[in-house]
């Protein structure tokens, strides 16, 4: 290999390393802005922007969903450790159900209730035929939808 080619390789290598370093710094600095939603624990720890709109995501807590009339629903969003009550008026997406992932947008009212203006369903990474999920439920081997996810899945 000639020295010119070696020099080009070194130059490219150093350039890419510098670029990777700079990108890592920028992404770390903007971490709070890149995150799409905050979890209920972050809401409790007051790490969310105060008095502003933000998104909160987690699982819809089992048994927390209530229709309170006038197309308004209340439910709790949980990450296993903490749960935040949510009030929402509007249409819910097809995938919305208890134990499923959800991302809500809105703001906290003074009484610790999150007033949502938009509710999106969040699908998890599990894909399974209906027959298999039914068989698992019958056999008591069911591990999805809320039972295990809420406590173990760290992605919320």
């Amino acid at each position, binding site marked *: 290999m000639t020295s010119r*080619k070696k020099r*080009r*390789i070194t130059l*490219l290598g150093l*350039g*890419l390393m510098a*670029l*990777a370093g700079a*990108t890592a710094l920028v*992404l770390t600095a903007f*971490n709070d802005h*890149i*995150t*799409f*939603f*905050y*979890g209920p624990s972050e809401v409790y720890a007051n790490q969310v922007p105060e008095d502003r709109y933000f998104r909160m*995501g987690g699982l819809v807590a089992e048994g927390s969903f209530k229709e309170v009339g006038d197309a308004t629903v209340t439910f709790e969003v949980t990450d296993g450790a903490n749960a935040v009550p949510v009030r929402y008026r509007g249409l*819910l*997406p*097809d*995938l919305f159900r208890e134990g*499923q992932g959800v*991302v809500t947008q809105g703001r906290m009212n003074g009484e610790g209730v999150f007033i949502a203006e938009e*509710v*999106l*369903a*969040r*699908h*998890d*990474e*599990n*894909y*399974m*035929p*209906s*027959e*298999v*999920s*039914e068989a698992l439920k019958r056999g008591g081997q069911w591990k999805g939808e809320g039972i295990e996810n809420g406590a173990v899945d760290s*992605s*919320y």
Partner: protein
Amino acid sequence: MSSEAATQPSGSRSLHRFANPGRFLRLADAVLPWVAAATILTLGAGIIWALFFTPPDYQQGQTVKIMYVHVPSAWMAMFAYTTVAAASAAALIWRHPVADIAAHAASPIGAGFTFLALATGSLWGKPMWGTWWVWDARLTSVLVLFFLYIGHMAIANAFEDAGRGRRAAAILALVGVINVPIIKFSVDWWHTLHQPASVSQIGAPAIHSSMLWPLLITALGFKLFFVTVLLLRMKSDILAVRIKTLRMMSLGER
């Protein structure tokens, strides 16, 4: 195939053999019919299996079938970009004409895959999430990938001197390669609306085998499709350069 295996041990020197456009053309002609046949077989089998013989998902119902096109497109969008970047690096370092041609032949194919991934993702997002689009880290970084492809194609033709344009495009391709790991790990590094990976997890994939196999076959079909179209495009690029050279020569003789 056998010639490729024989050249492997002798390292980078033997790779230089393929840098010769004439030799590349002969190799491409020998390989193309086989790759094309394999593409039709795997892609056909994969798509038919995925669309007609896979079970509905326990949550998504039939909408899950979008996944069989979306996931291979997204994989290939990243793979094609890595190819563009690797070929650009080889073109910059060794000034290989074939590497340069490969980078520019791969770029529009990759842009096509990226568009397909974005479009199918959007179609899935509306019924499942309740929105066509959100600016989360995964979706945004893939949109950036699409713009990188467009930029790579545009910048190559933006200079009067074709050589300078191609070098500028190669540098853009290398700068943009930083986006590939960002796309891959965006779902792990930040909270996103997009779900984390189902297949690349260490251990058992989070996708049932009756859905995983047709997905993998379709993905193989997508990859073979990429190789076929890449070889065809590279061939036509080399031939176009030859025709141009011959024209110039015949004009000079007159």
